[in-house]
């Protein structure tokens, strides 16, 4: 593909603004999107990605500003816009009770495809999406990845000039995501303008061009590497052995010249504030006898830098936290854990042990059994057979005792939106049996540690995302659990909020709290000490993040990312099953 010859503007907008109540979803943004390129609209949840796509698809009216999509104005020529675009909404937009073929037929009629052309078109789309063998299956029975491909096929029905995809990577396992990505690349090669919105920064890196959105504003517009380039010479990896990587991170974040740091396998990734600070970090590491090496900057480093750097390393949360003493060193244990739903073995003979003060990750594609295993461990599901123990208590017998030893933070922070922040804190303390002076003391501590004072009378729903997350964490920690369960804790969250969250978690681990986390988000897996990878209900690998990566390293894959390791491991299992 030659970029210059085909750089016609497919889509442009100027001064777009949209308000929902007091919230500015879009704040005077302008940009152009070029045909024949994959453009990413990148930003955390609530950044305005969906609002922008819906305005461009003429499903929503902007308060101010103009747009031109495929040459038409979505405000006044919405019919023409709709004829020339394909739009795939977040939740697939499929009719789940219709078969794959029924969905295609329906969309072909909606898009006024002539009957004589339809057959050919279906054959092509089915071939393209490799859904040919599944035409009779109900759309609701497809896997996340296959649904997404069918959604894409339906969006492509009218042979659109512009394709708008709203978070196509969500709920899709890495293997299907890779496939989806290849399909979209083929489309852009044919000259289509494709817009792909995402909250995953690793997806952004693969786009030809990105619009980086945050709080309704465009922070960056251009090819991702041109942003990443600005950080060359500022990103470093500090070697740390498994045990004190969190201490190294904490130390690094407390240095005045470090703007951002995260854990990456057994190393700490640090970004310094200015290129001249490189010298200081070298000196610092030498004095601490730490091994430092320069590394390629990542898109996420640049994003955090644009936002003004990450949070410091100190968390006031654990200042008053007494170190947790376990009688036994094993905090969580499962032995031959199995859960059968009818004929289906959701979790099949899984065994592992988690040491005190460890961060343990359960990783796997949707339907791999990680949620089922997780739910059995925190007492939300009863095992069909096998043993699940938390802090030495068997969940089947001593549930009440076991339960007061564990804390649980659900996905999307399940807080009571109908109660105020203070009432939520009150409730969490009370439901864990705290009373009187102790209760008041713990609540005051949490308000203090998380700076919740000014929000006490707010509903959790009206809190900024970062505060919502703090409140959820405060509620789950009120009773000082020795094991904390986190269900997809930071998916869709902006990188700053995620860093702050992991700071708190690292502080807890330092005090001996054990962390169990499920995630399909590869970045999050890097924070774990060990990762159990699940596939088809079975445990297929259990190792440190670096160990997992090393296990798949080969001549074609010299430095695999977590996601690549994941895909490789799954492919190995599939190959074995295929061979057997």
């Amino acid at each position, binding site marked *: 593909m030659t970029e210059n010859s085909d750089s016609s503007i497919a889509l442009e907008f100027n001064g777009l603004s949209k308000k929902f109540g007091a919230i500015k979803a879009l704040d005077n943004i302008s940009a152009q999107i070029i045909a024949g390129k994959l453009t990413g609209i990148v930003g955390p949840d609530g950044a305005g990605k969906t609002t922008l796509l819906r305005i461009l698809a003429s499903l929503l009216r902007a308060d101010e500003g103009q747009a031109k999509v495929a040459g038409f104005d979505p405000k006044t020529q919405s019919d023409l816009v709709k004829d020339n675009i394909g739009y795939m909404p977040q939740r697939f937009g499929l009719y789940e009770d219709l078969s794959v073929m029924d969905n295609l037929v329906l969309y072909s009629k909606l898009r006024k495809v002539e009957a004589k052309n339809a057959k050919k078109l279906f054959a092509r789309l089915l071939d393209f999406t490799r859904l040919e063998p599944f035409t009779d299956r109900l759309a609701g029975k497809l896997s996340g990845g296959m649904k997404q491909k069918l959604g894409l096929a339906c969006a492509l029905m009218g042979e659109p000039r512009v394709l708008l995809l709203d978070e196509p990577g969500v709920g899709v396992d890495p293997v299907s995501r890779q496939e989806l990505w290849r399909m979209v690349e083929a489309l852009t090669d044919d000259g289509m303008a494709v817009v792909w919105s995402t909250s995953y920064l690793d997806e952004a890196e693969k786009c030809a061009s990105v619009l980086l959105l945050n709080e309704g504003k465009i922070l960056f517009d251009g090819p991702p590497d041109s942003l990443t380039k600005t950080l060359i010479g500022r990103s470093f990896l500090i070697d740390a052995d498994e045990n004190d990587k969190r201490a190294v991170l904490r130390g690094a974040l407390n240095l005045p010249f470090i703007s951002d740091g995260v854990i990456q396998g057994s190393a700490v990734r640090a970004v310094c504030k200015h290129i001249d600070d490189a010298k200081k970090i070298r000196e610092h590491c030498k004095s601490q006898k730490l091994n430092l090496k320069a590394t390629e900057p990542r898109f996420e480093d640049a994003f955090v830098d644009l936002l003004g750097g990450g949070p410091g390393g100190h968390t006031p949360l654990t200042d008053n936290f007494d170190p947790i003493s376990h009688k036994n060193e094993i905090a969580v244990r499962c032995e031959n854990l199995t859960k059968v739903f009818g004929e289906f073995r959701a979790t099949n003979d899984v065994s592992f042990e988690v040491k005190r003060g460890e961060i343990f990750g359960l990783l796997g594609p949707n339907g791999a059994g990680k949620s089922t295993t997780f739910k059995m461990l925190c*007492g*939300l*599901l009863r095992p069909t057979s096998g043993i699940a123990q938390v802090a030495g208590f068997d969940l089947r017998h001593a549930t009440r005792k076991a339960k007061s030893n564990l804390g*649980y933070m659900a996905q*999307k922070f*399940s807080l009571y939106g109908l109660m105020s922040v203070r009432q939520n804190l009150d409730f969490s303390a*009370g439901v864990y049996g705290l009373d009187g002076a102790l209760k008041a003391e713990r609540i005051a501590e949490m308000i203090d540690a998380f700076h919740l004072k000014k929000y006490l009378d707010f509903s959790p729903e009206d809190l900024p995302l970062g505060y919502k997350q703090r409140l959820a964490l405060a509620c789950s920690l009120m009773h000082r659990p020795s094991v904390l369960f986190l269900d997809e804790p930071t998916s869709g969250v902006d990188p700053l909020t995620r860093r702050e969250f992991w700071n708190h978690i690292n502080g807890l681990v330092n005090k001996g709290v054990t962390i169990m986390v499920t995630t399909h988000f590869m970045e999050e897996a890097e924070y774990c000490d060990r990762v159990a990878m699940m596939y088809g209900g079975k445990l297929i690998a259990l190792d440190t993040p670096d160990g997992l990566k090393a296990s798949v390293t080969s001549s074609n894959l010299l430095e695999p990312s977590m996601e690549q390791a994941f895909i490789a491991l799954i492919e190995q299992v599939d190959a074995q099953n295929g061979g057997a």
Partner: protein
Amino acid sequence: MAKSKISPLTRLINFLFSPILRAQIVKEILCTLRDPRSRMSLIVPPILQLVLFSFAVTLDVSNVNIGVLDMDGGRQAQEFLTTLNEAKFVGKLYVVHSQKELENQIETGKTIASINIPQGFSAKIGNREPAIAQVLIDGRRANSGQIVYSYIQAIASNLGASTAMPQGPQPSSIRYWFNPALIYQWFTVPSLAAVLVTMTALGITSMSIARERELGTFDQLLVSPANYVEIIIAKTMPALIIAPLMGLMMIFAAIFMFGVPFNGNFPLLVLSIYVHIFAVVGIGLIVSAVSQTQQQAILGMFTIAVPMMLMSGFSTPTENMPQFMQYIAEAIPNKHTLLILQGSFLKGQGFADIFRNLWPLLVTGFIGLSAATIIVRNRLQ
């Protein structure tokens, strides 16, 4: 918990007021009162029903036309007709001269009822002998016709006469006790207390588990040390606090706005209302426990509520239902509560009579709440 010897009473109090339970009760009440949907279901239906039913009554039987064939012509017959003509519910009185004409008028819909005053009507009243006027009702408008009939009957009885319908129900002695203009409301308004309490309690409880499940807080609750019994107890509280207020409001409306005489034992009635809610809450929580979303819960609630109302005897007598349906009706709280309300208001029943209808409510309540607890627990497995 540390002390080994505690009296059962202290243990009960400790259990009732444990911080875990207290926290949950506060949460339930706050969530119910702050949920706009719950609030709507608390405020709108009572007002709507009060207005609707009080107007429905007056609309039903005003301005009806009646045909009259006076074969007697005596003083009392004249008086009967004059009273009828002046009665509020009568629009026009058509005096005709043959039975054929009377029937014709009803057939064409000109009149809803016709009265045939036989010869010797006045004389019989004068002699204090039973005097009967024949009344013909338009069966196509059965409900209004019934009310009109009861009005006519009452006017006749004031004169010392009685009325009869061919093949119709014989005038029962109780009917003569009522003030005819209110007879419909005397039955409906106290009964509405039961309907309202049921809808309120069902509305509040059927949403409660489903709402938490939809928002994900239910998992949070299940991983906490709170046990299933505590969760269910806490979930009954908002209904037990709010629904009786609705019931009392309707009862007071019946007594003070509609002047329905209250002859029974008031504390006993209030107790009965609590027991009724206890039974309804069990049903509501079953609906909520099997629902995954609030939408399912609302649909589930109406799926249960409509047959519950229809089979309760509020609109149609339970005795007319097939036998097996009557057995099912025994499990419906409203069936018993309606009898308690009518018994308290009109008959002035005492404890023994009331208790006959009270214990089935207790059985339904215990079964319902146990089932809800078991469903919540089994959902985990």
